[in-house]
């Protein structure tokens, strides 16, 4: 399969949030007005001006002792067969574009006219967000402008630890599988998320549901059965959790 792919090795992520800030910087996105809500995770959620967010989850053992602090740099997965586009095409084929060379899924200004709920529900990862003022729907664009000019996406460029990787899809899948084999020795539950279906492949050291409700598509489908499941028939839960 061609195009580009991210490989995000969560065993290496230190939640420095360089990626979160670099994304804002490159896209010239304004800061949100936040407050400390009893967590370091901030903003609390993705928004139409926050495309990349490092989620932080504490895992506590039965004695109440901290066992793990899991970090999940969340972004659009750039699905190989993007269900958001399938949903959008019913209304306007130019609202959501699917770049052939990279596989990037791009929301254009014409998303303003799309029914937001349908687009949102189509996404198994709960990614699209809408600007309440303009109605435009937005999310990660794979830094398509950078990538087309031979640069790495801003989040990948800034990552100090090698958690964020980006390149040709076959190479990234090879790297992901190699890392999985290594990491399994330390983390027997390690798993790659939705390898065949997405262009943002996460390597989880623990069960994906511990990171975030929508970490992998199958989880979401387990939790919520909506019409997007029908639309996004491409996702087969068992096949997605291949080792």
């Amino acid at each position, binding site marked *: 399969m061609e195009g580009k792919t991210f490989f995000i090795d969560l065993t*290496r992520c*230190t*939640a*420095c*949030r*360089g990626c*979160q*800030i670099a994304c*804002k*910087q490159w896209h010239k996105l*304004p*800061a*949100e*007005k*936040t*407050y*400390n*809500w*009893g*967590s*370091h995770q*901030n*903003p609390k959620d993705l928004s139409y001006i926050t495309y990349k967010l490092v989620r932080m989850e*504490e895992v*506590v053992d039965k004695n*109440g*002792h*901290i066992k*793990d*602090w*899991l*970090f999940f740099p969340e972004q659009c997965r750039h699905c190989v067969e993007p269900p958001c586009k399938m949903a959008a095409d019913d209304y306007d084929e130019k609202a959501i574009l699917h770049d052939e060379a990279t596989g990037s899924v791009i929301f254009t200004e014409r998303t303003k006219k799309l029914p937001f709920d349908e687009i949102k529900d189509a996404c198994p990862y709960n990614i699209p967000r809408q600007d309440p003022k303009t109605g435009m729907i937005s999310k990660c664009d794979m830094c398509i402008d950078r990538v087309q000019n031979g640069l790495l996406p801003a989040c990948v460029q800034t990552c*100090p*630890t*090698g958690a964020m990787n980006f390149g040709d899809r076959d190479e990234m899948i090879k790297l992901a599988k190699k890392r999985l084999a*290594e990491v399994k020795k330390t983390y027997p539950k390690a798993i790659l998320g939705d390898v065949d279906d997405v262009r943002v492949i996460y390597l989880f050291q623990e069960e994906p549901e511990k990171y975030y409700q929508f970490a992998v598509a199958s989880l979401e489908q387990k939790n919520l059965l909506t019409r997007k499941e029908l639309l996004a028939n491409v996702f087969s839960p068992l096949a997605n959790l291949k080792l």
Partner: protein
Amino acid sequence: MTNHWIDLKNSDCILIMGSNAAENHPISFKWVMRAKEKGATLIHIDPRFTRTSAKADIYAPIRSGTDIAFLGGLIKYILDNKLYFKEYVVNYTNASFIVNRKFKFKDGVFSGFDPKTRKYDKSYWKFELDKNGNPKKDPTLRHSRCVFQLLKKHYRRYTIDRVAEVTGMPKEDILKVYKIYASTGKPDKSATIMYAMGWTQHTVGVQNIRAMAIVQLLLGNIGVAGGGVNALRGESNVQGSTDHCLLYHILPGYLKTPKASQPTLADYNKKYTPICHDPKSANWWHNYPKYSASFIKAMYMDADLEEAYHWLPKLDDGQNASFLVIFDEMLKGKYKGFFSWGQNPAAGLANSNKARKALSQLDWMVVVNIFDNETASFWKGPGMDPEKIKTEVFFLPCAVSVEKEGSVTNSGRWMQWRYAARKPMVDCKPDGDIICELFEKIRHLYKTEGGAYPAPILNLSFEQWINEKKQYDPHKIAKLINGYFLKDVTIKGKTYKAGTLVPSFAYLQADGSTCSGNWLYCGSYTEKGNMAARRSKAQTKEQAKIGLFPNWSWCWPVNRRILYNRASVDLKGRPYAPQKPVIQWDGSKWIGDVPDGGWKPGAKYAFIMRKYGYGQIYGPGRADGPFPEYYEPLECPIKHHPFSKQLHNPLSIIFKDDMEGLVSCSAKYPIVCSTYRVTEHWQTGVMTRWQPWLLEAEPQLFVEMDPILAKKKGIKNGELVIVENERGQLKAVAIVTSRLRPFKVMGKTVHEVGIPWHYGWVYPKNGGDAANILTPSVGDPNTSIPETKAFMVNVRKI
């Protein structure tokens, strides 16, 4: 760092203690992760489970300020189980040295203590000398007064039970860490320590580092790849500023500040030039007069050496002019004016309310910064009445780092040149330009109006700092720091013309024929060019094995990337760890890194900067004892600890006025508190709080606490609470998290909370004020660094 960032990847075991490297030195984790991939164990010891702990193989909780108990126990464990690297210990450390009979240790105090002055007479700790004046040694390590036996005796008290009782660390965690760390005593294994302010900002800060240095020497982990004692510096150029010695007690290159009791250059040199009669000791500081003369000539190029020595400022004997003392004296009205340059003491200095009040005693203050801050605006801050404050404040906006050309020296001692990326904004100037303009004005005033002792100002070789356009010139400064020949000098048959740059510090002279602004940096800007600007990845096969890039930037001293590297080989020059050799003798020369002196293997002792040439397990030069000893922080939760009757470091720096508010073991303030940083902000936040994206990620002052404490206090996660002690009060958002946990200390439950010190009342609104409002102005006797990492507070609902 004795080593450097890339070298972390060579380690078999990385201990992060007194540091939260993943958050505060994020790039370091590039190399930590490489080490882990090769099988290294990562250990994090900290009161809090942080983003660093999240990546560690072992996390062990410890109560703030109890590190010496833990490290003393580790020393005992290594000795009891004979896990030390004996050949290294005998050949390269002072373990075999015999200490004189006057050295004693009783009830937490060493011999020679004067309770009135709270100082030690260090003559009690001297080595026993032979007829040539060299320390007597027993290489069998059996003599009852040899360092090795004294070490054993000293740490006999540091049992696992006692360590657990004091630190609150579970016994099984202690043993697990000891076992893994001590396993690197094998010749081909190495372990490293990454530490930062969590170790230094204590009344036992220096002894924390000393304790670790002893561990590393016992295990043969100094001088080797993946080893060393590595201080992670908290600012991009704090290593550079340390090397150039902006602190009061040292001059550039770690030369001592002259004292009033040293009236001549000869007196001064005599006092600070060590003499050793052992021909095998390189005793590198015997070159002191060359470095002091070259420094003086860099200041006053045309003057007579002796006369110019008089122009250097002198300290009174026994004078402490450290930051804590300056502010204490400022509070007493002893200063008229103050330059707050690139700093924010009203938020950054321990006991900020005291610092803020001290500023109000000034006639004037000049603030040089890129943003408004709590210092510049102290007069309109909380509790201040602007009408009653006499201090006149001037604010000079300056250029930011990327607008200035010059060098930055990183933690690994790499001097890296950088170019100005853009011009400063209108009316903002680089610091160098501000200093030059200021100096010219001051000089003009002395010229036209006279004044007390104008010679030091009027004779300064200021022309060396500026270009033809009379502007500050970073290249000329860098060349002056490197140094020039001032006369034609012939060395080993080669003549160096006056005006040429000195190739290395080995060429510096004591007679005034050379100048060098900082001998350690001699070799950084030579006739070959600006070495710090080099960006070549060229390396030899041996260098590639351990990630050495000798042609990338330049490193002091003489581009040596790993300090004390002669200790990485045996007496024949064979690397102890052949798979990761730092240097090796190929039969005719050394290959790999630049060796610690080019002598043949075994010709000189390995630790060339020490008078006797040995690594110091026994350190008789420290103010508070030759061995680290356990003391509680000045504010602590327990009245007794199990190691001695001496509760606190008897030499701690303390002040007596009504703003100190020291309270220990009180039901009013029963909770241990520590301060720290987060990735998203920097220092007092002057640069980062104004950055919307960073503020978005960490918007407000918070206080992290364990769920049991929160429940006891009726505090809910995310709620605004009060953190307070006698020095002040803060409002902070409670983060209730299992990443903190209560400690069992001497049979009782002790809770610990933590607050970041990035915030201040100026901006943002409702962001919270400075954590240092709560920290005490007490200090370490060696460095005067404040104890901001362990003190007592209470937390309550609003």
